[in-house]
């Protein structure tokens, strides 16, 4: 075990995978000599060389398209998109190609690429360095979508992603890249997909969150606890495949649900969670399902703290739910 920040854990995950398997290689912008704009690939260029830590031209289309070609050929490429906000030039490659190759070839051409990208707000990044559009990828059959919130999960889910057989979108909460640290197992630490992380047990209300929304969710739970309200905090972390059973079980226990994410509300991931509960946990629900999310505006610069969900907003929603029934 070593105490690492979240971004260091990502770095160790990459390093571990590259040491394990010569077929693992990285490609992206500024990931080589520069070590990545967030230093996620720091030191890897030195250890593995330009052949395995490939600085590419400024083309996300090219990065993902080339990664797909490499994967078809048998390598295990990990593509970095510098910010999730810049993934859209590669969107066609991701939704039309990466997600569908295995399917459309009847399994003849599986295509295992990991696409890493930092996402989310809270870093004074404005419209184009703050977005959370995980729902786009969750709505695309054929993609797995994973978001860690702890250093241990960052490494463990990343190693699982790199050794998976399917395409994985791996989104990293840049806001807590350095502010969150924790113990991370050495070596080949893997965290399975499709299982929630129960952050905190509770009986009165379930708070579902992921990524950078976990710290405020826990803060809210602390505050609620002081008033005798017992909030369960569930870190979804694997959005696809989703641990629906655990989600439903939590609400069967608490009867109330608050869904939290940074992304805009309308058609966000929270809507799916809400819909699953309205379908599968209907008879357990004691109160309307609340969503605490970003507003349905582009992500602002000066007013980002107003835009982002925080502990107060989560707490208020949980209190309403508890009051409601």
């Amino acid at each position: 075990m070593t105490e690492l920040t979240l971004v260091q854990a990502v770095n160790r995950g990459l390093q571990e995978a590259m040491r394990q398997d010569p077929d693992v290689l990285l490609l992206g912008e500024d990931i080589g000599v520069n070590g990545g704009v967030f230093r996620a690939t720091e030191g890897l260029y030195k250890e593995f060389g330009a052949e395995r830590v490939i600085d590419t031209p400024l083309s996300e289309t090219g990065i993902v398209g080339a990664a797909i070609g490499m994967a078809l050929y048998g390598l295990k490429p990990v593509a970095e998109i510098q910010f999730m906000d810049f993934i859209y030039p590669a969107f066609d490659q991701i939704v039309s190609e990466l997600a569908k190759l295995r399917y459309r070839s009847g399994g003849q051409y599986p295509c295992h690429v990991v696409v890493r990208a930092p996402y989310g707000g809270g870093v004074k990044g404005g419209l184009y360095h703050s977005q959370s559009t995980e729902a786009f990828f969750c709505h695309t059959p054929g993609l797995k979508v994973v978001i860690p919130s702890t250093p241990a999960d960052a490494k463990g889910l990343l190693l699982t992603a790199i050794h998976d057989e399917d395409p994985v979108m791996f989104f990293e909460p840049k806001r807590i890249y350095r502010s969150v640290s924790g113990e991370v197992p050495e070596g080949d630490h893997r965290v399975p997909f499709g299982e929630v992380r129960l952050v905190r047990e509770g009986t009165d209300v379930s708070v579902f969150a992921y990524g950078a929304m976990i710290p405020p969710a826990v803060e809210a739970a602390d505050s609620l606890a002081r008033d005798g309200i017992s909030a369960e905090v569930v870190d979804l972390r694997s959005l696809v495949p989703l641990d629906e059973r655990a989600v439903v079980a939590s609400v069967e226990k608490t009867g109330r649900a608050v869904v939290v994410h940074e992304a805009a509300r309308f058609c966000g991931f929270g809507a799916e969670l809400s819909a699953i509960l309205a379908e599968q946990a209907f008879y357990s629900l004691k109160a309307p399902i609340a969503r605490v999310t970003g507003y349905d505006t582009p992500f602002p610069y000066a007013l980002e703290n107003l835009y982002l969900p925080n502990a107060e907003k989560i707490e208020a929603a949980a209190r309403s739910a508890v009051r409601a029934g």
Partner: protein
Amino acid sequence: MAEATVNSSRPTDDGSVHGGLPTDRLLEAYRWMVLARVIDERALSLQRQGRIGFYAPLSGQEAAQVGAAFALRAEDWVFPAYRELAVALVRGAKLRSILDQLIGNSTDLANGTQMPNHFAFRDQNFVSASSPIGTQITHAVGAAMAAQRRHDPIVTISFFGDGATSTNDFHAGLNFAGVFQAPTVFFCQNNEWAISLPRKRQTVSRTLAQKAEAYGFPGVVVDGNDVNAVYLAVAQARRRAIGGEGPTLIEAQVYRFGPHSTSDDPHRYRTNEQVAAARERDPIHLLKARLMGTRALDEPGDQKIWEAARATLASAIEEAEKVPPIEPGTLFENVFARPTPRLETERAQCETFLEHGGEKK
């Protein structure tokens, strides 16, 4: 040296590629070209009869496709668009497999997931084609980079049309290939049309080949009706790639004789005269004349080739049409390596629905 014209009457001065294909190979090429033409004709009528749902003919592009395929080795990887049926044939894809795909039956290697013409033949290193134009170009570059990394002495080749030169992936793919000196060949079949848009309105560069210069490697124009010229151009590009000299863009100039696809009515945008003029350089006629000129072929022999092609095709169709339709359960296969719990649930829901007689076909 961004652009050069290659044709068989002026073979490249490079000794290793020689003057081109010997007569027996030319005759073999002819057989493939005829088979492709025969498939085209038959497929159009199968589509009209509702026996297949769609078809995109390749007539006019047989020499380009067969010539290119002849210059490749089995270990090379092909990244096709939807029109490369003749390439698949030459590489050894079974006619039955092609028919299975056109029909989408239960032995279709791709599980009936795709429209006709979107082939994938793993055994032939013929990678799964998609409909979005150009996307295979970056894949071919990535695969070439992978082969380079593994020191495999192979090349990759992407097939695409004149329209595809306007896409994002063309730009990204050629630029990456230039920067990383990827052992890949970009094979553009300029058939003068992107559905209704003529080549001249697609881009105003003088040739498509010259676009290679923007990426730091050579572009070559070749007469795509001349199977030998195409063979030479691709063989040379392959040799460059294998030799570590990087990529080449080849523009094979052809003409699309038929409609863009069975959904298209070309009379809306071009005249019969234009097509007739182009048909004067029908690659099959040109090769036939050449073979007759060297007495490698005579009329009875030619007859036999056509008849053999028709007979082989007829029996493949018969076989493929006997195959039962695809099983409903396959709908949920290959989304992921193993179905997620949600897919299992959906599969179960679908089965229940079917048991209650729900499906209307």
